[in-house]
C-alpha cells in the first residue's frame, strides 16, 4: 500500500517505527563514531556554541519576567522574600528545560535538518556511500551527539542567566533583600529539583536531535522537500517537547 493511501494512524505508526529503526542505526554507530572525536566536538559547538546568544538573551528576559510576575504575586501574600525560590524552581524544573528545548528546536534543530537535507539534495550523502563511508556514522551520529550533549549545557546556562535576571528585577528594582533572596533559594531548592531539570533536558535533547537528523536524512532531495522537512522538525519537536514534559512531570510528581 502506498503511503498516500494509508490512514493517518497507520501513517503515524509507520513513521514512529521508522524513527525507532533510525535511532537503532544511530545507537549502533555511536561507539565507532568516537574514532573521529573532532567531528563530535565540532557539532557540539555548532548546536551549543552557536545557540548561546539566543539562549542567554531568552534566559535573561524569562528570568526578568519571572521576577516581575513572581514579585507581584508573592507580595499579595507578604512573601516577596521567596521570590528567589519561585524563580529557581520555575526555571530548574520547567521553564529552563522547556524553553531551552523549544529555542533549540527552532535554532539548532532546523539547522541540522536543512544541512543534512541539502547534503542529500546535492549528492553529498550518496558520494559518501560511493566512498564506502556510512553517512549515518560520519554525518548523522556526530550531529545527534552534538545536540544530545549541548542541550543540558544550554539548559544550565539558561537557568543561570534566568536566575540572574530574576535577581536583577527582584533585588535591584523591587527591593527584595539580597540575603533573603539567595538564602531561601539555597534552602528550598533540593538536589531532586536539579536532577528533574537535567533529566528533562537530556530527554528533550535526545528527542529534538533525533527528529532533526531523521527529517534531514529522509528529506526529499529538492528545495521544497528540505523546506517541508525543516517545518516538520519544528512542529514535531515542539509537540514532542510538551508531551514529554507532561509525562516526565507526572512521573516525577507520582514518585516524589
Amino acid at each position, binding site marked *: 500500500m502506498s503511503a498516500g493511501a494509508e490512514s493517518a494512524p497507520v501513517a503515524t505508526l509507520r513513521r514512529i517505527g521508522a524513527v525507532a529503526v533510525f535511532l537503532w542505526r544511530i545507537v549502533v554507530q555511536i561507539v565507532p563514531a568516537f574514532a573521529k572525536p573532532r567531528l563530535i566536538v565540532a557539532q557540539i559547538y555548532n548546536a551549543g556554541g552557536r545557540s548561546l546568544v539566543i539562549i542567554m538573551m531568552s534566559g535573561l528576559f524569562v528570568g526578568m519576567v519571572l521576577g516581575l510576575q513572581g514579585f507581584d504575586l508573592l507580595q499579595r501574600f507578604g512573601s516577596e522574600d521567596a521570590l528567589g525560590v519561585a524563580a529557581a524552581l520555575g526555571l530548574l524544573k520547567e521553564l529552563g528545560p522547556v524553553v531551552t528545548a523549544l529555542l533549540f528546536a527552532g535554532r539548532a534543530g532546523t539547522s541540522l535538518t536543512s544541512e543534512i537535507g541539502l*547534503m542529500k539534495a*546535492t549528492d*553529498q550523502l550518496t*558520494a559518501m556511500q560511493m*566512498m*564506502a*563511508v556510512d553517512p549515518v556514522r560520519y554525518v548523522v551520529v556526530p550531529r545527534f551527539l552534538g545536540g544530545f550533549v549541548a542541550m543540558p549545557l544550554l539548559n544550565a546556562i539558561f537557568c543561570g542567566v534566568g536566575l540572574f535576571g530574576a535577581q536583577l528585577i527582584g533585588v535591584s528594582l523591587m527591593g527584595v533583600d539580597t540575603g533573603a533572596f539567595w538564602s531561601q533559594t539555597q534552602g528550598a531548592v533540593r538536589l531532586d529539583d536539579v536532577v528533574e531539570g537535567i533529566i528533562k533536558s537530556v530527554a528533550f535533547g535526545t528527542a529534538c536531535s533525533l527528529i532533526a537528523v531523521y527529517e534531514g536524512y529522509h528529506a526529499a532531495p529538492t528545495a521544497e522537500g528540505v523546506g517541508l522537512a525543516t517545518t516538520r522538525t519544528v512542529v514535531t519537536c515542539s509537540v514532542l517537547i510538551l508531551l514529554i514534559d507532561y509525562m516526565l512531570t507526572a512521573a516525577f510528581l507520582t514518585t516524589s
Partner: protein
Amino acid sequence: MSDLATNTPPDEAVIEVRDVRYAIGGRTIFDGLDIIARRGRITAFMGPSGTGKTTLLRLITGMAHAERGSVRVFGDEVSTMRSQELFALRRRMGMLFQNGALLTDLDVYENVAFPLRAHTKLPESLIRQLVLTKLHAVGLRGAARLMPVELSGGMARRVALARAIVMDPDILIYDEPFVGLDPISMGVICRLIKQMNEALGITSIVVSHDVQELSEIAHDSFLLSGGKVVAKGTPDELRRSDLPEVRQFMGGLADGPVTFHYPAPDYAKQLLEEAP
C-alpha cells in the same frame, strides 16, 4: 592497483550487465539490458535524457537492485552483496558526480583527503603527499585551501576527480562529466579522463550525451534507448549506423523514434476545451 586487477587479462569484462529489468514507480526503465565494460578501456553509455543512464550507474554501484537479470562487477553479483561487501566493492571504485558532490563544510584539501582519513591510518605527512599529488594531477594544487563554494563548476569537478582517484580505484565512473561546462573546462575534463585511463590503467565508465567529447575518448560505446541497448561499438561505428534511433541521437535530430512531444491529448481539442 589491486591484486585482482593485476592478475586479470587485459580484455576481461570488469562489469557485466545481463538481461536486466528495472522499474521504478510503475515505469519500466530497463527491460532486457545487456552491457559489458572491459578492463582498462573507456566505455561510454550514451542516450537521450531520461533514458536511465544514471540509473544504470546506481545498479552497477549497488545503490539500486534489478528486478531481474544479473549485474556483476569483478565477477561478483552486486544484488546479493551485503552492505559490508558492497562497501568493499565501492572502495575499488571512484565516482565523479554530475555536480561534483564535494562536501561543502570541508575545503578542497580535506575533500580529497576524506577517503584516506576514513579508510586508512596513514600518517599526516603521507596523506599530504598523496593529496597534493592528486591535486597536482588535476591542476589544482594551488586551490587546496579554497572552499567548494569558491570553485567554478569545472574546478569543482576536477577536485571531485582528484578525490575519486585518491584511493587508486580499479574503476572510475563519470556521471555526465561535461554538463554545464565551458569549452575550456570540457576539454580539460576530457583530457583528464583520457590521461587517468592511459596512465593508471583504470577501467573508465562515462555516462553522457555529449557525442563529440565521447568520440574523442571512448573505446566502446553503448547507446541506450527504450530500456535497452539499441547500438554498440566504437563512436565511429555508431556514427555510420543506419538504425533510426542511432541516426537521430548522433545527428541531434528532433524527429525520429524519440518523439519531441510528451504524450498528450489532441492539441486543437485541448485548446478549445474550457479551462477547469
